[in-house]
């Protein structure tokens, strides 16, 4: 059998394969991160941490529909002090661990980044694109080029770790936002967050199902939009891209790499294919590469471009 290389170098972080646990999925505890790494993820991202603890929205917070998932968890998290206690000895997780940090102002992003600076994270992700939490992301204007530049610069000043800025698919000026992040010193772009917000109404009770009424849409419905966003961002910036949105098979992952992503985030796929979706996607990528004469995953990055 041909030797197929899946390992990638993402901003000088070595990933054994390009699959990454996306933020907000299973990243609540150290034990779950370890389990996901054992299930084959090349890297894992924790659930986003804010300065103070947040309970998030009431249930239902996550539901599914014919084409994917819709969620409004509302950034529930234990706050940076508790997170520091939870996420220790990250070297033993078995894969690089990315922090995800949120704030309602520049100073809060900085405080959280500083609070987690001794924890051994391999990178920091900054989502500026959540569509369903007041005070954060799109609902507080963090997704504009200017806010993206300001927040990214503020975090850049206080950390040497690679910074990935996670952007929204639901704004027209996506390449301008990606460029603003790059100019501010971001090391990479995570494209994309959930889209929307969307809404599902239960027609018997005549009420929206989600506790917050609206939520971010992910899964199969998001994939073609995510692929297009990655394709556009690839042309606009020089820094690497983590492609996220509807990836649950090896073919999906390869499509995302061809659009220009160096690595891929997986979230909703944990539901559709189980917690071992990471090793499944890797095996399927390998199979496709063998059948199509590729032995290095990096040769696929961006090849859909003219």
């Amino acid at each position, binding site marked *: 059998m041909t030797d197929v290389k899946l390992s990638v170098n993402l901003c000088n972080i070595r990933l054994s394969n390009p699959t990454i646990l996306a933020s907000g999925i299973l990243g609540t505890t150290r*034990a779950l991160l370890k389990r996901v790494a054992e299930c084959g993820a090349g890297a894992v991202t924790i659930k986003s941490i804010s300065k103070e603890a947040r309970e998030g929205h009431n249930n239902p917070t996550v539901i599914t529909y014919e084409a994917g998932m819709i969620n409004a968890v509302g950034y529930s998290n234990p706050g940076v002090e508790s997170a520091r206690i939870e996420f220790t000895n990250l070297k033993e997780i078995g894969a690089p661990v990315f922090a995800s940090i949120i704030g309602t102002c520049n100073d809060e992003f900085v405080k959280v980044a500083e609070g987690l600076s001794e924890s051994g994270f391999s990178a920091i992700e900054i989502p500026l694109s959540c569509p369903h939490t007041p005070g954060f992301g799109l609902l507080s204007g963090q997704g504009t080029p200017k806010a993206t530049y300001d927040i990214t610069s503020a975090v850049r000043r206080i950390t040497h770790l690679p910074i990935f800025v996670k952007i929204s698919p639901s704004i027209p000026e996506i390449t301008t936002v990606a460029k603003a992040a790059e100019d501010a010193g971001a090391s990479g772009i995570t494209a994309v967050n959930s889209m929307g917000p969307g809404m599902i109404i239960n027609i018997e009770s005549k009420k929206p199902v989600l506790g917050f009424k609206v939520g971010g849409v992910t899964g199969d419905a998001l994939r073609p939009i995510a692929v297009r966003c990655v394709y556009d961002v690839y042309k606009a910036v020089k820094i690497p891209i983590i492609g996220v949105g509807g990836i649950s098979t090896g073919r999906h992952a390869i499509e995302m790499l061809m659009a220009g992503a160096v690595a891929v985030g997986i979230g909703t796929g944990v539901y559709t294919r189980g917690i071992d979706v990471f090793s499944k996607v890797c095996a399927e990528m390998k199979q496709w590469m063998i059948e199509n004469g590729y032995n290095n995953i990096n040769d696929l990055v961006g090849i859909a471009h003219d």
Partner: protein
Amino acid sequence: MIEQPKIVKICDIKDETPNAKTFFFEYMGHYDPGQFVMVWIPLNDEKPFTLSYINRNIAGITVLKRGNFTKTLHTKKIGDQIGIRGPYGRGYSLIKGNAATCIVGGGIGMASIACLADKQENATIVQGSRTMPELLFRHRYKEMRLCTDDGSFGYKGTTVDLLRELVGKHDYQKIYACGPEKMLYKVYELCNEHHIECEVSIERYIKCGFGICGQCDCSGQRICIDGPVFNSKDLKDMPDFGKTEITKSGKRISL
């Protein structure tokens, strides 16, 4: 599969204790004792409940009045609507044949283990509560050993005290338990001492119910999909069991 609540009408309500009511509704589909459903009150909240009754197409949940959600649920009348999704999780594994087993319910945990007690043959059923009025399902089973902390009915002491006596007299092949986690941990320890297999149902704050959000973690096990029922072998590798839990915010607290 689409994970969304299906609206059902409450077709009957039974007062079980001064603070617990059973709500019955039409239920189609498969159900293993120990699995749970998510119960939705539109514009309020959604919470997990194990079915406490299942008979043909009618299921019931027995709900203790405790927080905002359960207080609202207690105001519901026959004919009112609630949303149900599921069933979710891994239930109890029944033992076929004549082997003796023991089923232990502590407090409202009795509701979660009641359907197992309906099905498992040759089982000693033990129920404990703080005081007599809180005892559930008094006339549901042919025989049930009852205990109260205050001695107002039956054996005076905890379910674990009574279980310790029973274990000395019977040759149980398996012990099932649901109740406060401190009780479950003691049952687990007692079973280990006597080399008896045990299965317990663990409760955590549940959000999605289908294994994606990570809210209900217990030592890397997702209560909603890997559990809520775990056996002795699983529990051995779950150091959080009996020690810490994760709250709605994700904060880890001591039990």
